[in-house]
């Protein structure tokens, strides 16, 4: 299927109906997931209602990592096959990944405030997420800093792959560091343990985030391809 879509024309045809479809799916999933998570799911026996923030926090965290992996694959394709769609995909996905990482950090802060009594705590997982957030910012800044788009795409791809290799090292280092300094951490996956009743809203929210990513990335890619077509036409007219 990827091979089929690798033709930009066919991709535009595919995304013309796929993007609105994902948009509808995302809206639906958020419409179900948000009330379920924030109002109707049971409160945690330890943390009470603050556990509801987890439903926003955990999917954002997983997705932001997943999006970076997506960008890594797109970057690899970009370097090996020099394909425009790969460049466009990686660039479109980055701001979304960065935003999800930002959501993870902010919700993590809100979640921690009642628990820790402070608005920020250098918890191992939050710290790793902060590093990922900055890696995203660097990637996005690089695209803007280099004028020739082809070169920017390739250099950004190298940067993304370097990040992919370094992320496990950073995660390992931060975990090592946090065990060394042993801060009080309640942020284990899903709070205390994931009860069956939590899986439903969690999965729905995860699906909602994923559909939102697909929607925004597809629309972003379409916008980029339209822009390139306009620029190519202008170049032809000027010549």
């Amino acid at each position: 299927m990827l091979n089929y879509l690798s033709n930009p024309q066919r991709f535009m045809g595919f995304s013309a109906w796929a993007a609105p479809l994902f948009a509808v799916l995302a809206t639906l999933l958020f419409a179900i997931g948000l009330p379920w998570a924030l109002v109707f799911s049971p409160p945690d026996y330890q943390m009470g209602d603050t556990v509801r923030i987890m439903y926003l926090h955990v999917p954002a965290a997983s997705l932001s990592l997943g999006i970076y992996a997506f960008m890594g694959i797109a970057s690899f394709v970009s370097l090996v096959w020099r394909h425009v769609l790969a460049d466009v995909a990686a660039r479109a996905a980055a701001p979304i990944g960065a935003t999800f990482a930002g959501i993870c950090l902010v919700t993590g802060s809100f979640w921690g405030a009642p628990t820790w009594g402070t608005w920020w705590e250098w918890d191992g997982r939050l710290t790793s997420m902060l590093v990922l957030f900055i890696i995203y910012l660097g990637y996005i800044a690089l695209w803007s800093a280099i004028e020739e788009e082809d070169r920017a795409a390739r250099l950004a791809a190298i940067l993304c792959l370097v990040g992919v290799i370094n992320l496990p090292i950073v995660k390992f280092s931060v975990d090592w560091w946090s065990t060394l300094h042993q801060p009080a951490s309640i942020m284990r996956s899903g709070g205390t343990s994931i009860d069956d009743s939590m899986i439903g809203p969690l999965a729905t929210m995860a699906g909602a985030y994923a559909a939102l990513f697909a929607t925004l990335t597809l629309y972003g890619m379409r916008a980029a391809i339209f822009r390139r077509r306009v620029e190519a036409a202008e170049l032809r007219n000027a010549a």
Partner: protein
Amino acid sequence: MNAFSVTFRRDFAMMWSGGGALAPLGYFFGATMLVPLAMGPERDLLAAAGPPLVWIAAALAVLATLERLFQADLEDGSLDQMLLSRAPLEWIVLAKACALWCAIGLPLALAGAPAAIALQAPVERVPAIVASLALGMAAFIGVGLVGAAITAGVKRGGVLIALIVLPFFAPPIIFGSAVASGEDVGAALLILAGCALGGLALGPIAAAAALRLQAE
């Protein structure tokens, strides 16, 4: 004489000439000096928290030198010649990295001794701190090479290279600071050595790939 040694000698001479190492050293000491200015001079506080901060100063100082590493080569046409050399570009980049480590990284590591003492590190810990800084510099340079190569064409790319490279400085800083605080020194030094070797093995490969793109 082969391509590696002529590149090493030329880059070392260029970095070292005209007191070339003095500016990064000055930056390093200046940044170190800011620590007690920010934290207060109280000895106990500094002794508890100060020594690891020498790593922040070291990271900033080496970052300043990384920015210029490839920019001149790209602008004056030297990169074109390196691409035609007998030796692969990766090897030449490694030579430049070694020159940077010898000319600036190692002096910065040695300067870590007085800096750590100024930040109230116990004297018996200083040799380990210097060793960790020497390894950390190699790790910084290894990953910094890639950032420098990627941003080589960008005008005033100093802030950009910092943004790109600082997240990857985190592992050496974490392990180096552990040595500076005296915790788990043996393990931390081993891991730092791993970071240094990994950085110097993989960094030139990615940097050379980026430089070939810059030459287009």
